[in-house]
């Protein structure tokens, strides 16, 4: 994966496959503490302690179409390469929270990438899932909630090409202005 937005898309796809109806994606950049923290929390089926333990093993997967599961090991590797770590907090029947931390200024810390495309892709695939996105950077914040968008479009499905295009443009604009505060 080239950047963190692709890892986020991948982990959120796990949430969807685990039957989540609510996904909360948070990125927090704190230059004072020199920490970048990613959090993907869902209310999907969750995992028991044994599965959590195996989740970082590339040769463990619950799928049947292939015998390797690389999503979480990739993110773990990306975090460790940037002096960070990956944590999985999961409870069967409750949900899963994946937390990855990185040293913000580390030379090997992957760039955040295109979050507008990641959020738009997630909504296009599963317009009925509630997605809350928040990206904070030293006190400035970008946020988006599909619940709020659904209220605005009042009954129109979120996966119409026009609505998705609006969401992409809105996030591109907001992410761009967040960058200007850097």
């Amino acid at each position: 994966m080239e950047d963190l937005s692709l890892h986020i898309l991948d982990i959120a796809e796990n949430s969807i496959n685990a039957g989540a109806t609510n996904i909360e994606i948070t990125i927090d950049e704190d230059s004072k503490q020199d920490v970048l923290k990613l959090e993907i929390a869902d209310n999907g089926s969750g995992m028991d302690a044994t599965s959590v333990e195996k989740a970082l093993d590339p040769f463990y997967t619950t799928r049947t179409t292939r015998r390797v599961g690389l999503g979480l090991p990739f993110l773990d590797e990306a975090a460790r390469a940037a002096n960070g770590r990956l944590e999985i907090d999961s409870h069967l029947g409750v949900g899963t929270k994946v937390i990855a931390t990185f040293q913000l200024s580390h030379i090997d810390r992957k760039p955040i990438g295109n979050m507008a495309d990641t959020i738009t892709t997630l909504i296009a695939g599963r317009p009925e899932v509630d997605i809350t996105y928040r990206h904070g950077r030293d006190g400035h914040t970008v946020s988006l909630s599909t619940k709020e968008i659904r209220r605005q479009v009042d009954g129109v499905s979120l996966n119409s090409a026009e609505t998705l295009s609006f969401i992409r443009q809105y996030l591109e604009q907001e992410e761009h202005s967040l960058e200007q505060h850097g």
Partner: protein
Amino acid sequence: MSKITIDDLAKIREQTRRQTTLRQGAGRVKMTVHMGTCGIAAGARDIMTAVLKEVETRGLHDVIVTNSGCAGLCSQEPMLTVETVDEPAPVKYVLITQEKVKKIIDSHVLQGNVVKEFALAVGSERTR
């Protein structure tokens, strides 16, 4: 360009409502981008973006765009599956690029002609 806010969505609501109601019924064509770890690593998100942009700019209101997971053919990613109401089986396209997306929409989605050279296989094994 002036700054857009979430409230601006209300403006596109009415124009979209009519077209979207049509879409929520059975669409004529369904395009599925495979979004497993393998697909994402191979560029599936850019393919999704390209498909959405084509569908939007061409005003294809009877096309449903969605995504799915890994189909077990990781070396052939990015993959795109096209299903139309008047065809017996879905067509899986492999090693997709943005150029291929345009051609698949021109030929398969709009005219019903499968782009055989991009498809995984044509037909299946026959037994006697």
